[in-house]
């Protein structure tokens, strides 16, 4: 799959970066690697949430960015999946789970051509997430999140 910025005069080798257009695709391309790297630091869940919110914002205005080069599939999803191998959820972790499923649900709506392993992993993650949510006292946010997870049927 070609990257979207290949259409412009974009050059990552440009030392002054003067020819890189000031638009979301190329700029997000430059920053995405750092965000993905930062997310690996599990000790700071609030920063992880910030990172996911940045990705949500990119997805909002550039729907194909996370699909291209399997960015979400290869670099983000494994980190998120690994982060939730735990027994309980606090407030920030709940927000992280919500942001993650919000991104996945939009990917699912786009009917992305994903490999079988990724679909299996997402299905396993949905089961784990629902199990985790059942351990928390039910409220409106949790019910909405459960509905969101169940609605990602396109990936199943």
């Amino acid at each position, binding site marked *: 799959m070609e990257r979207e910025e290949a259409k412009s005069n974009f050059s990552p080798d440009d030392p002054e970066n003067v020819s*890189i257009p000031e*638009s979301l695709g190329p700029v997000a391309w430059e920053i995405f690697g750092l965000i993905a790297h930062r997310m690996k630091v599990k000790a700071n869940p609030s920063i992880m949430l910030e990172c996911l*919110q*940045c990705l949500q914002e990119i997805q*909002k205005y550039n729907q194909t960015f996370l699909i291209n080069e399997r960015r979400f599939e290869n670099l983000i999803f494994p980190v998120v999946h690994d982060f939730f191998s735990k027994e309980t959820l606090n407030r920030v972790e709940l927000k992280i789970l919500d942001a993650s499923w919000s991104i996945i649900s939009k990917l699912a709506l786009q009917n992305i051509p994903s490999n079988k392993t990724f679909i299996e992993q997402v299905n396993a993650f949905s089961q784990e997430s629902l199990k985790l949510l059942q351990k928390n006292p039910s409220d409106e946010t949790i019910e909405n999140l459960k509905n969101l997870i169940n609605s990602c049927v396109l990936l199943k």
Partner: protein
Amino acid sequence: MTSRILIYLFGKFQKETDLQRLLIWNYLVKISRESFAQCETFQDVMKFYSETLIRNFIDKLAIINILSDHQLPFQILRTFIWFLDQGAFLKYAENFITHLNKHFDRFYLQEDLKTTSLIFPLYKLILEAISSAFSSNQENAKRIIANSNTIRSILMRTKPFILEKDLNFSYYSLEIFKISCLPLSCNF
């Protein structure tokens, strides 16, 4: 004279406690009522005076080099951007950001992270102003994006701080990127 008083009050506002801020706010309202017959509120004064103040600030930014207290001017600027009229600000935003970037580079190269950290909230406020102007479809905001590398110049300075151990730097860098997504998405 009025602009000098306003700048002084902006500086005090950032440093004081909530109660003193309230007093300063009352002074600002009093100045607006007594100095300008045509202005009923302080917001009216800002609309009337913002252009002059921004031009003054752009000039004064250059003298930060010779001030012993590097932090105060940035604190004043922060309050100023809170209060100013966005329309007037966007007119001078490019020039303003260029000057601010120069100071960012200088303090960064001197490894003065304490002062550098004061510029992050300023960048955030500036991008919020540009982004909200985009939401209300202002032509000035579109011109800034179309003709310059303004937003990118900020992002390229803040992006290394995403990996910074100090969470404050990391938080601001990510916030700044998040806010700039909307204006960047409008430029193709």
